[in-house]
């Protein structure tokens, strides 16, 4: 006797992002096992990430190097004009479309790990082992700190710098990893006299020995991040009286440039993954509350492999936190619109985009550094190249893991991706030998019914909705459904996946 087909509908598939930590069988279908080059869009759907396009046109300015490694936009207080600084190819550069070498004379650079901070109409460039450089709005040039008028003391050759509480705080020197120095008030080039000072926290570390990796300001606290512990000082608006308010053991920061302030939280990369310091302050609990909990093992593997400079960015416009691992060519994307019940963020993973640095300018645009200059995170191409978006569900048992399933039909509702070739794939029993069926998404005209088009010269925009449906084959106890689509200039989101399966015999 013919059996009834059982229908499984996954609305907003992968809405919870990737989950490679929980048991795949029992994992809710809203988790994805793979969400490559995806984001969680504003409607809660899994969609293709944006790519980038070059702003810079004179790639020769940094040719021969490894591309841009730092970008920082400064808005002049005098007239509001913007000056974009970048570093690359052992140069200090200004400009976006045309990069101009602004390296001070007689200043030789052989490393690319700059930290750019701003304080009181000056921009400071710090790198370990190098005399800091200063851009002064008054002079409009970048100078060595010792050449700046009014500079005092020995310019600290620190790797980490923070402009906060009206002064600069610096740390992480070649031989000194446990002393924090701060400048005179509002004068980041004065390191002696006034209210300048330092604090050696070598005896404050909870585990006896650690090294400062990053500094941050949060909630009127000065946050000192060691590699394996975090020390929070209160009252840093007067550093001479600041005192420890909290010490977090076993949670530190492993990458200076992974620290991002979201306003409510500080996000940073620890040995255990991405942590939220705001939560840590509230709950003083580290490991179980990391926001990368659902990809913990994956991300820790990338951390272990990493030999380059990890970069990150937080974009309020895109509502994500990106952290990139250059060695692996992987970028993790954590959606910041809302956290899951377990405190983790919805996570997707990117490849091929391989940004070398990030910066969100005052307008909210996300700049990235690439080998040929500054790029803008906007288009659905990586430069001129296409990239593949992949979504795979976790293995689904359709509510009964002991019954053999025959997937008969797979139907999807896909938004956008006009003209993209899409592969619908399925596999059984945790295997990766996917069977696939290619489908070209619609690029047809969009009806503009009941939409006033007066004085609007655009008729082709709109939402392209494609509902591909294929007949599947094979059988197994659990089935994995996926879609891969080559992104080439158009956005794509997966709205819904419907799977019709026939229940077979019991095991």
């Amino acid at each position: 006797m013919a059996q009834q087909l059982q229908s499984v509908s996954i609305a907003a598939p992968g809405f919870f992002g990737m989950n490679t930590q929980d048991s795949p069988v029992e994992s809710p279908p809203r988790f994805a096992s793979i969400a490559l080059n995806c984001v969680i869009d504003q409607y809660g759907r899994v969609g293709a990430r944006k790519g980038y396009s070059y702003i810079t046109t004179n790639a020769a300015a940094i040719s021969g190097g490894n591309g841009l490694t730092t970008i920082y936009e400064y808005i002049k207080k005098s007239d509001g004009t913007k000056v974009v600084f970048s570093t690359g190819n052992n140069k200090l550069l200004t400009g976006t479309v045309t990069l101009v070498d602004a390296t001070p004379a007689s200043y030789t650079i052989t490393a690319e790990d700059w930290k750019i901070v701003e304080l009181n109409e000056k921009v400071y460039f710090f790198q370990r082992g190098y005399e800091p450089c200063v851009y002064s709005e008054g002079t409009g040039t970048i100078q060595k700190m010792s050449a700046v008028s009014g500079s005092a003391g020995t310019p600290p050759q620190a790797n980490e710098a923070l402009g906060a509480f009206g002064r600069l705080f610096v740390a992480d020197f070649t031989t000194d990893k446990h002393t924090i120095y701060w400048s005179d008030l509002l004068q980041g080039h004065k390191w002696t006299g006034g209210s300048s000072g330092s604090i050696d926290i070598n005896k404050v570390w909870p585990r006896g020995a650690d090294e400062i990796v990053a500094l941050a300001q949060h909630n009127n606290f000065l946050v000192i991040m060691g590699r394996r512990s975090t020390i929070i000082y209160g009252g840093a608006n007067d550093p001479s009286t600041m005192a420890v308010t909290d010490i977090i053991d076993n949670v530190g920061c492993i990458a200076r440039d992974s620290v991002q302030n979201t306003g409510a939280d500080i996000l940073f990369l620890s040995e255990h993954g991405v942590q939220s310091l705001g939560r840590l302050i509230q709950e003083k609990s580290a490991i179980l509350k990391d926001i990368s909990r659902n990809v913990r093992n994956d991300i820790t593997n990338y951390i272990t492999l990493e030999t380059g400079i990890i970069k990150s960015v937080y974009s309020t416009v895109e509502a994500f936190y990106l952290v990139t691992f250059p060695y692996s060519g992987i970028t993790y994307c954590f959606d910041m619109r809302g956290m899951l019940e377990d405190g983790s963020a919805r996570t997707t993973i990117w490849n091929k985009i391989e940004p070398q640095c990030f910066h969100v300018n005052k307008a909210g645009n996300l700049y990235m550094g690439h080998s040929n200059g500054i790029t803008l995170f906007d288009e659905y191409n990586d430069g001129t190249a296409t990239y593949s978006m992949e979504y795979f569900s976790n293995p689904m048992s359709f509510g009964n893991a002991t019954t053999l399933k025959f997937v008969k039909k797979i139907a999807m509702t896909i938004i956008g991706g006009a003209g993209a070739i899409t592969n619908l794939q399925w596999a059984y029993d945790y295997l990766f030998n996917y069977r696939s069926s290619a489908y070209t998404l619609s690029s047809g005209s969009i009806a503009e019914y009941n939409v006033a088009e007066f004085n609007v010269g655009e008729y082709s925009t709109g939402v392209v909705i494609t509902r591909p449906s294929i007949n599947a084959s094979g059988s197994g106890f659990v089935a994995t459904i996926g879609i891969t689509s080559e992104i080439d200039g158009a956005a794509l989101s997966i709205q819904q996946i419907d799977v019709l399966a026939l229940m077979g015999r019991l095991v």
Partner: protein
Amino acid sequence: MTLDQLLGITNMGGAAALSNLGIKEARDAGTAQQTALTDMANKYQSDIQFKPYTVTGATGSSTFAPGGGASTLSPQLQALMNQLLTSSGGMFSGAAQPLDQRAMDVTAQLEAASAPSRQREYLSMEQRLFNQGRGGLQTAQYGGAPEQFAFAKALEEQRAQNALMGRTQAMNEQTQQLNIGQGLFNNAFVPQQQMNMQTQVNTPFAELINRAQQQGAVTGGELAGQGTQARIAGETQANNLRQVQLQGLLDALNAPAGGGTSFLGSLLGKLFGGGTSSTPAGFVTPTAAQQNAALNLP
């Protein structure tokens, strides 16, 4: 020459002889009296000389001699006096010491006294700073933490106060040493004063003796004076008698036996020739100085 004349001449001779005898006796009596009284005055003169004497009591003894006096304290009091003088000398020596060294010593003692509490305060502050994670703090404003600066400031203030207190204390101590030294020095002479008092108490008894001797000397002087007066009186009496005698003779010779110049008168003049003075020859009237010396008067 008639018999009457002869008898008259005989009578005049007899009367003159008798008068000479009276004069001599009066003179001898005055001389004897002067000699006796002078001897008596000489006797009292030896008695008036100072007799050495010694006053002895619990505090010691005092001896007075014509060459001077000497006091000797008892051994116990002498030892006490020596001890007090030695002690006062020590006190004076201490009071005369340089002030700086003593002030430094006192300051060091004050520092040592406050060191434990200061150390506790420092450790407490250090622990507090460490617990606040501020142990390694260095600032241009304060050197270290403001608390450390305040501590160091308070420490220096306390040290300055200790130095001031040390100096004040040293000055007080020297003043005290001076006062004690003065007290000891004054008390060192109390035995001597007591001894002087003892001597003064016993002096009236010696004074009585001397006074009696002085009275004897006065009496001797008076007696010598009286002796001189007695001799003067005898000589005066003898002189008077001589004058009477001579007047009688002169009257007798000048009386004319028939009214003419008297022969006897001229004879008497030949007999007694030159003897017209009323003072007998060989008699010397004492001068005023001789009289005072005889009376032992200045």
